[in-house]
């Protein structure tokens, strides 16, 4: 996941909020040989549904087959493809980085530049929180590697279509009803 997909699709999948739905979706990807780069699940404003945001690579996953196969799952209600060029993508990361007295100042400076936040402080380590476009997280991660990353977690991306001309950019692929 560290390397962002060179060419990817972002699928926003509305599913029924039922036990096992995530397993159905992920095992479908495994079974059909589609690679998932990231996957994020969250409740929606309607408690009957959840939204799964999936990033898949273009190579292994012909978009049409992915969406059609996904749509065969009974609990999948709606699938939208978000064109990465016309979507707002965000991801969150927390990481622990070495920050000994000699380098601590530099690390803090970089956190500032990237508009991150220091959320925990140890003797010679800092835990940093950073949210933003996935590429910004990648850059920050690269920079921090020089200091020594202790632990790192990223949430996987969530995305929404950009607001202007939303209608033409959100290609609704498999809407039922």
């Amino acid at each position, binding site marked *: 996941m560290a390397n962002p997909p060179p060419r990817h699709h972002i699928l926003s999948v509305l599913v029924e909020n039922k036990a096992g739905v995530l397993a159905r979706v992920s095992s479908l990807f495994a079974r059909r040989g589609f690679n998932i780069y990231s996957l994020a699940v969250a409740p929606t404003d309607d408690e009957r549904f959840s939204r799964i945001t999936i990033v898949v690579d273009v190579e292994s996953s012909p978009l049409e087959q992915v969406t*059609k196969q996904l749509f065969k799952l009974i609990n999948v209600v709606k699938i939208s493809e978000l064109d990465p060029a016309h979507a707002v993508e965000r991801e969150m990361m927390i990481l622990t980085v070495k920050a000994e007295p000699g380098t601590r100042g530099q690390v803090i400076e970089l956190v500032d530049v990237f508009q991150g936040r220091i959320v925990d402080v140890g003797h010679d380590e800092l835990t940093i929180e950073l949210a933003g476009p996935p590429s910004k997280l990648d850059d920050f991660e690269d920079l921090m590697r020089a200091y020594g990353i202790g632990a790192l977690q990223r949430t996987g991306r969530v995305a929404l279509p950009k607001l202007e001309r939303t209608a033409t950019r959100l290609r609704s692929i498999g809407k*039922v009803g």
Partner: protein
Amino acid sequence: MKLNGGQALIKSLEMEGVEVVFGLPGGAILPVYDPIIDSPIRHILVRHEQGAGHMAEGYAHATGRPGVAMVTSGPGATNIVTPLADAMMDSIPIVVITGQVPSAAIGTDAFQECDIVGVTRSITKHNELVTSAQDIPRIIQEAFHIATTGRPGPVLVDIPKDLVDPNNPNSAMEWEWPDSIDLPGYKPTTKGHPRMIREAANLIAESRRPVIYAGGGILKARAAQALRELAELTGISVVTTLMARGAFPDSHPLCLGMPGMHGNYTAITSMQQSDLLIALGSRFDDRVTGKVGAFAPGAKIIHVDVDPAELGKVRRPDVPIVGDCKAVIDELIKAVRELGPQPDRAEWDTQLKQWQAQFPLHYEQGWGEGDALKPQFCIEQLRDGSPEDTIVVSGVGQHQMWSSQFWRFNHPYTWINSGGLGTMGFAVPAAIGAKVGMPGRTVWAIDGDGCFQMTAQELVTASAERIPVKVAILNNAYLGMVRQWQELFYEERYSEVYLSPDLPDYKMWAEAMGCVGMRVEHPDEVAPAIEKANSIDDRPVVIDFRVDWTEKVYPMVAAGTSNDAVILGPEMGEGGH
């Protein structure tokens, strides 16, 4: 009305019009077996749960109604995994109910616990673990709806024991049969897009060498009559895939028979040379296309399927139409009529007739002293000695291909086999299921000796339940199809394919299971044995046909090669162009 979950389950099955359940009880499903005693639903006690699953499939194939099987948790559930996968591949509507350990024990590795919902996720159209007795009627109703609509398929419902056990408070429920189904993510498209249908009609009108490529979807959609109308209206010839044998009468002048790996030369080659393939409920399976890149290179494609994921999965259609085959064909017929008369295709039709005359299916039965009995001869005798609407059920192997090739299927729903999964052991239980659904019809299982040994014990079920199926074992003493591949592609190095003609003694085995057993070794004995078998209607019959073990299935397109390279047989060499 207050019921317990077990009663609610049985009542739900009754509400769905279920007349028969194939099953075998055990600890977790035990409470459901009590209310069954008082239900009008017939329960057929199988000897192995795989049998229950294939019986449900055979029943569904023959009747078009969903088959139902019920088994216990753990090993009962895992034993029915193969039929679920089989039904998934061949789009057979079945509903399987599995017992599960009590809710509180789930996840503890309790006795006979198995996460069958997890195991069968990718081999069911849908599955569901019930979490409250109150949900049972709704989930059963949804299961039947999902199994039978859109592209049909298997649905599994897993029910923890506490929800059906009257001694457990968790089983308490208030009976309520939902009056509508609410599945926001499931709304299959049945009507084809009118513009696409017009485009299809245009392509048909322009085509000079069209072929209708009819698949199992024709039978699922009960569209055989519509298909015939379309073919006759347009004068376009029809190939029927292994899953569609009988969907268009073999006796019809426009019928080209089966295409694919062991299809006949004309069916294969007509597709290769066509300029338009009208794929109706077929899915460009690798056994039909051979090497995909070389398949029907000059053909435009009209592809009709109720499952949108099939369109473009293997071959990109020029005109994709999502919809139920029957509904789409009916509309297509109208659109074709509007365009007026079809172009003159005499040249193509003459070519087809010429191929048929030049490259018929071929075998020779010798009648001399040492001449071995040919399996194809047995099938032809069986065909000619049995009622015209006999239902034929086969196993998987050479005997399956010969059955499909040499029987004449003139009615839909007379051919039942395991096409997609290729499940050895399918024939005997599926034949029993078919006979239960169609008790007035003669049902012949044509089985291999290898296949027979996998599920033969279900003939005990058939005897006990008085289900008079008939079984013809084409006993070639080998896993014949595998031997054929070893002969042709592994330099005759035979590895683990010999079975022996005498071990087991099939006649004695049949008799031990309460059937009439016969043995046939010479061509002269074939017809009389079949006549005798067809006259028996109070118990199952098994005939052990001792056939030529050297016989191979031809024509053949070797796996992964182009359909242009049809091997016609040892004496006829390679056809193609």
